[in-house]
């Protein structure tokens, strides 16, 4: 199986800084994920479901979208707003399944787009249903992860 290419671009291909490098979103237009997300985000906001559940669902979604593209014979690039392990780190959640989900992804090649906090804030509202965590903390966690794994810039 060849390496699948992913671009971490909080505002996707249409972002003002162009850091997505033109990679299309991993999700189709008006995706099921975006339609169902408010139900989970509302439960998190009401305190009846913890944030880790929402972050796990986002992390799983990344896996499903990559597998879907692979079944079409594609190898990317696809744009993702966030990298799951960095989300968990930024939220201070130590007990999570990001490692297992990354293993299930198969070989991937990741490039970094913008880490601008305001772009990350906007991406949180769209893809996490609200301001779930500190964007600056996410940017720091992602930068550390990228350095450790030698991920390049988009």
């Amino acid at each position, binding site marked *: 199986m060849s390496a699948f290419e992913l671009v971490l671009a909080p505002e996707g291909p249409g972002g003002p800084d162009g850091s997505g490098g033109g990679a299309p979103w991993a999700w189709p237009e008006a995706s099921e994920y975006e*339609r*169902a997300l408010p139900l*989970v985000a509302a439960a998190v906001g009401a*305190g*009846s479901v913890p944030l880790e*559940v929402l972050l796990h669902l986002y992390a799983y979604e990344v896996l499903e979208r990559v597998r879907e593209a692979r079944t079409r014979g594609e190898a990317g690039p696809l744009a993702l707003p966030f990298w799951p392990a960095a989300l968990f780190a930024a939220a201070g959640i130590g*007990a*999570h*399944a990001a490692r297992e989900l990354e*293993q299930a992804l198969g070989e991937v090649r990741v490039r970094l787009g913008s880490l601008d906090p305001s772009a990350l804030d906007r991406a949180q509202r769209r893809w996490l249903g609200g301001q779930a965590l500190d964007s600056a903390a996410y940017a720091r966690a992602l930068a550390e992860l990228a350095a450790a794994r030698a991920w390049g810039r988009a």
Partner: protein
Amino acid sequence: MSRAWSVLPPPGPLSWLHPELAGLDRAVRARAAARSPVRCVDLGAARWSTAALASAEELELAGGPLGRALREHLGAALGSGTRLTLSEAPGEVAGVLATLTAGTSWWLTPLGAADAGAELAAREALPLTPASAERVRAARRTDAAWVLPIADARDVDEALRALARDPAPFRAAGLVPFFAERAPATSGARPATRRASAWFGILPGDECPTALRLGLRELVRLLHPERTLAQRAHENHALAASDLYAQALAGRFLAPPPEARRARARIVALEGIDGSGKSSHVAGLRAFLEQRGVPCKAYKIYRHGVFHATVTDLTRRCAGEHELHLWRLQRLAKLFDSLKALEGALRADLERPGVLLFDRYVFTHLAAEAGRLHHDPYARELLASFPAPDLFWLLDLPAERALERIGQRGERTVDENRYMLGRYRDVLLDLADRRGARVLSAEAPFEANQAVLRADVVRLLEAEEVRA
């Protein structure tokens, strides 16, 4: 408004497994409360509410893993109006255990020794021998407990060697096996165990070698045979990242279920384990309703395609007790996929008159949570958007008969075995009983069951007409 309160967290999983530690906790707490110059609130002593704590300006929480979990919970529940701090001197068992130094493992270590008599107070630990165990048994006080600290696989091996020859004296001494995290030498960072902090003492998380995990199990079996299964359940929850302590703090197990919404369409749910004939009956009912000119659609909220292949792959990765974080995650993913189905074409159909027939409904999710996890990882909350069914039937079938029927279909899923189908069936029968469902034997002739289902639907629709 009070200025500052000292707060002791309620007992956690270690005391759930070893209740004698809760007794020790209470004694330690009482002493802490007596010493405290400020108001001391023991959340383990009585029912409590977050609202009652909100009247303090500052809450100083006893340190240790439970205190950290409580700070996280209260931080979210109280917002920024109340300052939360962790005391440096923990007032609970965890704090005492945290003082264990490297090299003391495989020794018997007293807890609460300051109140356990001069003889024990003079000692920090005893070697792990039958003679020591006998002294511990003789010296035990109601407010003292002795633990057997374990830090690595070597400790387990040595402890097992000592116990295996003659476990009786150690069992009589009431020793509690305890996984003690050694403090990192230089960085000061806590070990990355990927288990919620409240599971401390039970196991080290999934960074440990399998031999250590199996060894801890064996120690519990030798010392407390009646807790063997409970320890396994705790271990599975911890390794699957289920934070039961946080859920207990949030009062999740006391909260009433969310009130189900009503839909304009009439919701008709058929449930049953694999092979019970749901799809055939849904097709029969649909044809019957269409013949009568009733607007009708059939739905499956358990979908196939890439989603199903992905969650099936994740489930298979857990075989042999591997990657247990995925065991919980695949259930969450299935819940979310049903929400995706809800927010698709189904959402509009719910607001139209007619009948919606469901080939499985939310009850299958609930059966899967209890059947697979023995715990609900937020299905109740996440599925609250689904309206309550107007009719709920359970096509009941013994697991053995289901397997005979499934056997003709090809490759089996991880659930298609006698044990798992039996668990699903038990939970569905319980749900049917509590939700007032009609239970039909799936072994009855198809036409007989169809006649019952059709009569029920006709009665429902006639009642609707009367109301209209």
